[in-house]
C-alpha cells in the first residue's frame, strides 16, 4: 500500500538552516546536511529545502549545497525558493535535487510549469501555493504571503495540473504558525478536485493534527517545519501513533 509521507521542511538562508516562528526571529539551526541526515535516519520520507536567501548573490550558494545534500542523503528531496526559469531548475536538478518547487514565478508566468514539465518530466515539478481564506474565498498570495492576488486556490491548482505540475504543495496561511491543525476542509476539496498528489502544509502542532488530516482527507503527504525542528513532535513517535490508527506509514528497518 502506498504510504502517507511525512516531510520536514528546512528553511535555508545563506547556506545554513534557520528556524523561527513565521519568519521572525530567525535563529541559526545548524548545518543543513547534518539535519537532513538526521531526519532521513529517523524516518522522514522526503525532505523539502526552501531557500529564503534574499539576495541573488548569496543564492549562488544553493547549487553547491544541493550537491552536498544529494551526496549524503539517501531519500528524495525537493528544492525551492526563487526558481523562475528552466536554467534555475536545471542547475538544481543537475546538482542532484529530485524535484523543484515553484511558486511566485509560476503565478506570474504559468507557462513556466509547462516548460519545466516538458524539459524535466512532470514528476519533478511541485507547485507550491500559499493561500488564505478571504471574504472572496481562498485566494493565492505571493512573495512569501505578502501580496494578495485575484487568483483562486482551486482554479490555480487545476490549471497547474493541466500545465503539467506533478504535485501540489498547499500551505494555508490561516493555519500556518497557529499550531491548531491543518486546513482540513480546503485540503479535502483540493485533493478531491485533482488527479495529482497533494501535500498538506500549515498548522501542524501535535500528533492528533496529523491523524485528523489523514483520517479526514486523502492527501498524500504532510509537511511541517517547526514542530520537527523544535522537537515538539518526534517523527518515530508520530509514525507509531499514525500506524496505531491504521494510517499507512513507512516503517524504518
Amino acid at each position, binding site marked *: 500500500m502506498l504510504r502517507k509521507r511525512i516531510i520536514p521542511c528546512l528553511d535555508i538562508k545563506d547556506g545554513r538552516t534557520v528556524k523561527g516562528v513565521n519568519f521572525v526571529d530567525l535563529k541559526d539551526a545548524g548545518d543543513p546536511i547534518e539535519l537532513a541526515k538526521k531526519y532521513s535516519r529517523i524516518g522522514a520520507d522526503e525532505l523539502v529545502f526552501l531557500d529564503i536567501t534574499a539576495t541573488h548573490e548569496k543564492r549562488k550558494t544553493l547549487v553547491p549545497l544541493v550537491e552536498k545534500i544529494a551526496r549524503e542523503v*539517501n531519500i528524495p528531496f525537493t528544492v525551492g525558493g526563487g526558481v523562475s526559469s528552466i536554467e534555475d531548475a536545471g542547475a538544481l536538478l543537475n546538482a542532484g535535487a529530485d524535484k523543484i518547487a515553484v511558486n511566485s514565478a509560476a503565478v506570474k508566468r504559468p507557462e513556466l510549469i509547462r516548460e519545466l514539465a516538458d524539459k524535466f518530466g512532470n514528476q519533478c515539478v511541485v507547485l507550491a501555493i500559499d493561500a488564505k481564506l478571504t471574504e472572496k474565498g481562498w485566494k493565492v498570495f505571493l512573495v512569501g504571503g505578502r501580496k494578495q492576488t485575484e487568483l483562486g486556490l482551486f482554479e490555480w491548482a487545476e490549471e497547474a495540473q493541466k500545465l503539467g505540475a506533478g504535485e501540489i504543495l498547499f500551505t494555508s496561511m490561516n493555519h500556518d504558525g497557529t499550531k491548531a491543525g491543518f486546513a482540513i476542509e480546503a485540503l479535502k476539496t483540493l485533493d478531491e478536485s485533482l488527479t*495529482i*498528489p497533494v501535500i498538506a502544509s500549515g498548522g501542524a502542532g501535535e500528533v492528533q493534527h496529523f491523524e485528523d488530516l489523514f483520517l479526514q482527507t486523502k492527501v498524500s503527504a504532510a509537511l511541517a517545519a517547526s514542530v520537527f525542528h523544535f522537537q515538539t513532535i518526534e517523527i518515530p513517535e508520530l509514525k507509531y501513533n499514525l500506524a496505531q490508527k491504521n494510517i499507512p506509514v513507512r516503517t524504518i528497518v
Partner: protein
Amino acid sequence: MKNIVIIDYGAGNVKSVNFAFQRLGFEPVLSHDPVVIKNADYVVFPGVGHAKSAMEQLKTKNLVKVIQELRQPVLGVCLGMQLMCRFSEEGNVDGLGIFDVDVVRFDDQLKVPHMGWNDLQNGDSLMNDISDQAYFVHSYYVPLTNETMATCHYGISFSAALAKDNFYGCQFHPEKSGEIGERILKRFLEL
C-alpha cells in the same frame, strides 16, 4: 575495484545514482562511450523524464544495439527499466525489447504519478526476502510478466522489478530508497 559504468545519455538522474554507489564505497564512471560501456563489469542504466525523448537520445548516441548486446550485469532504473521493454505508451515509442512486455499508463481513477513509498512483494533473485517499502515515482508501469522479479500494488499489481538473463530493472529508485535501496544495489554488485 569493480568497474561500474553509469550510462550518461542526457536523460538520467545520473548524479543521484552515482552518489548512491559512492556512499557504498565505489567509484563509478559516467559515460556514453560504447567502448567504455562494453568493457564495464557492471552497467547501470538510469532515467527520468519522457520515454520518447529518452529513446531519441539513445539513438543519437548510438547506444541501442550496445545496450541490447551487453553480457555483463545491467541494472535499469525507473525510466531506464521501462526503456528496456518492448514498447511504451508514453509517446508510443518502441523500446530496446530486452524485456518482452509493453509499458502502459496507470488508470486515471488513481492519483498519478504514483509517488512515494510502497511495498515490494513476492521478491525473487536480487529482490529475494525484501518486503519493505521503496520509493516510487512514475505515471506508467510494467504489467506482471514471467520476467517480474518483484511486485508492487497500486490500484493493480505491477512489476516493481524485472529480471531476464543478465538484465535487471527496478521501477522504484534504489538510490533514493534508504537502506533497502542500498541493500539491493549491493546485491547487484555481487552478481
